[in-house]
């Protein structure tokens, strides 16, 4: 046993990494399902509903397809850059999840004290920005390596867009840094914890406990818009849209390499949503004041009706498979909800993680909602918006926030 | 911990490799990259000394060196683009109009 405790500093993070990568890849897969269903319903159609009940096995079918598809190597590509680009994109997207704290608890396992989140560094926000800065290479190298003029143009456009909006992204967060006084994401969340006012202590409203707070609403809008441009999503997805430059920088990529770009895009969506909740919406903090302890039953209050609805829907489903699986899933949800009421210890432990995940899924839903609703920008409109509007507004936000913080400190 | 000398020797090696690259490469962009390598080697020496003496001045200088390198890369690459368009080649031996 002493060997385990001696190397606990190595074993525990590795186990956490394995769990996190598994969870994130599953969430990515089901995020594609959510996106297709939501965009379909916005467009008054059904989306995938044949493969499994309500199309729930569609991501599995897509994964199997990616594995079995032919993976051609185009002629005259630059082999180093061609193989490096998707690998780089995926590695950077997954690494950025290492510094995000998912919950407040600190616990000790095998004599090693740790929290919910893989690494807890003092400069976690700077680490995230470093990884975002390096993510440009995945796109640029993919465009260059493909030996195809459309890919090259798409790659150049996309990387120029990413570095332009990276400035606005970084500057819009400086307001939060001024208010919180630290780069560590955990401390930024702790700073927003105002016990009486709950929701109003978050950075978006700015009534923090020590009085040195200012509403970061301009910063939030600049951050979210710049983040959507960073992740190449609608309405900023001209470089990779299907009706434009063929498919942009990932034209010449098939099966597994294309899947890597795909997963990298969805993982960076998840990272940006996590960042938006941590920086502006209080991370794992509950929106209700701490004195309202009856709000600790909100998770159960959401899970039990959801489970009952899934059971009810499953009983009337068309296929037999659906009539077995859906009530099963619904029963599990009801059981978890009831279990949370019966075991208050577990209920307390999952409060932070529940609110964090709820907010992250809200932001992911907004991402998907925008995909279904908005048309895309033309490239010159996109660049002039980033440089001529977003960057000056972010700088103005920094100046305004620093003036207010200085005034309030006296 | 790691002795300071190790960092300084590594800095000297990187600087030497930068000089070799600067002298022997013919592509102007590769020469520029060798210059950046030399600047990085100097940064390493700055940070090593800063940590070794316990003062933060060296790290502040590193920030200035990085900023100057950024400005230099911007203007230098602009000049390179213009020269390459004029002389239709990225080889430094082709830029020889003033040669006797």
């Amino acid at each position, binding site marked *: 046993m002493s060997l385990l405790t001696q190397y606990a500093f190595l074993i525990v993070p590795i186990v956490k990494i394995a769990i996190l990568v598994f969870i994130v890849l599953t969430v990515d897969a089901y995020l594609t399902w959510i996106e297709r269903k939501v965009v379909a319903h916005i467009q008054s159609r059904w989306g995938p509903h044949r493969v499994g009940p309500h199309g729930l096995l569609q991501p599995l079918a897509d994964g199997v397809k990616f594995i079995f598809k032919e993976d051609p190597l185009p002629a005259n590509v*630059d082999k*180093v850059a061609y193989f490096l680009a998707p690998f780089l994109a995926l590695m950077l997207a997954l690494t950025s999840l290492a510094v995000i704290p998912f919950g407040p608890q600190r616990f000790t396992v095998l004599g090693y004290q740790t929290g919910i989140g893989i690494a807890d560094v*003092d*400069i976690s926000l*700077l680490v995230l*920005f470093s990884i975002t*800065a*390096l993510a440009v*290479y995945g796109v*640029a190298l993919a*465009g260059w390596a493909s030996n195809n003029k459309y890919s*090259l143009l798409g*790659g*150049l456009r996309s*990387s120029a867009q990413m570095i332009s909006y990276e400035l606005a992204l970084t500057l819009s967060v400086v307001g939060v840094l001024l208010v919180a006084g630290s780069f560590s994401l955990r401390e930024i969340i702790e700073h927003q914890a105002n016990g009486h006012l709950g929701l109003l202590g978050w950075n978006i409203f700015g009534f923090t406990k020590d009085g040195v707070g200012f509403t970061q609403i301009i910063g939030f809008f600049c951050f979210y818009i710049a983040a959507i441009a960073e992740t190449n999503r609608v309405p900023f997805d001209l470089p990779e849209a299907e009706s434009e430059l063929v498919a942009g920088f990932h034209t010449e990529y098939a099966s597994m390499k294309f899947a890597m770009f795909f997963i990298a895009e969805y993982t960076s969506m998840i990272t940006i949503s996590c960042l938006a909740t941590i920086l502006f919406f209080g991370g794992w903090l509950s929106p209700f004041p701490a004195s309202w302890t009856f709000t600790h039953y909100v998770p159960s209050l959401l899970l039990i009706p959801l489970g009952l609805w899934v059971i009810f829907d499953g009983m009337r489903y068309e296929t037999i498979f659906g009539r077995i699986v859906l009530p099963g899933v619904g029963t599990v949800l009801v059981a978890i909800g009831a279990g949370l009421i019966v075991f208050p210890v577990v209920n307390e432990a999952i409060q932070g993680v529940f609110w964090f995940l709820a907010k992250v899924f809200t932001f992911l839903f907004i991402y998907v909602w925008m995909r279904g609703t908005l048309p895309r920008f033309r490239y010159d409109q996109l660049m002039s918006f980033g440089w001529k509007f977003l960057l000056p507004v972010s700088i103005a936000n920094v100046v305004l926030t620093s003036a207010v913080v200085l005034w309030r400190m006296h | *911990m*790691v*002795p*300071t000398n*190790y960092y300084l*020797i*590594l800095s*000297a*090696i*990187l*600087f*030497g*490799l*930068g*000089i070799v690259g600067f*002298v022997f490469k013919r*592509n102007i*962009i590769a020469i520029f*990259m060798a210059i*950046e*390598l030399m600047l*990085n080697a100097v940064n390493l020496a700055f*940070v*090593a000394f800063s*940590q*070794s003496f316990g003062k*933060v*001045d060296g*790290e*502040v200088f590193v*920030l*200035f060196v*990085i*900023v*100057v390198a950024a*400005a230099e*890369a*911007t*203007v230098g690459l*602009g000049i*390179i*683009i213009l020269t*390459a368009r004029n002389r239709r080649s*990225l*080889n430094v031996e082709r830029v020889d109009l003033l040669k006797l």
Partner: protein
Amino acid sequence: MTGALVIFFVLAALAVVGSISLIVQREPIHSALSLIVVMVALAGLYLLMGAEFVAAVQIIVYGGAIMVLFVFVIMLLNAGEEERTNFSKLATFAGIPLALAVTGFIAAAIAHSSASLPAPEPSGALTSTKTLSMLLFSDFVYPFELTSFLILVAILGAIVLAQREN
């Protein structure tokens, strides 16, 4: 062989291999990729020494902006393989050993200087951003303002260079 020494040798080997690859590669894009590897290795070394803010700035500015500029220029100019031009054999046979000899001499001088200059080892204590910024804005405020002016001049220069001749 402590953990710190192992990490140092791994990162140092990565940096040296990256710089040799920078010199040896014939395509400029591969040289650029090697330089990025060198910069990330150096950022790791800065972290090992405890300079966390400098490491982050190195990756964000050097690796994420300056090298992106290099990669853009290489892609725009479609820089291909280096031409093979006539090359003085004397330069290769006398030059490279001379450069290595000079480097070795400097390295030996540094290694032997530990007796006369009793510099303490890197402490490994983390330098907080706060100490760095206190110094930057009090003692070094003039160089700071001058560098911001320098960046403005560089931006103007780049815009002037990029204009088309009318």
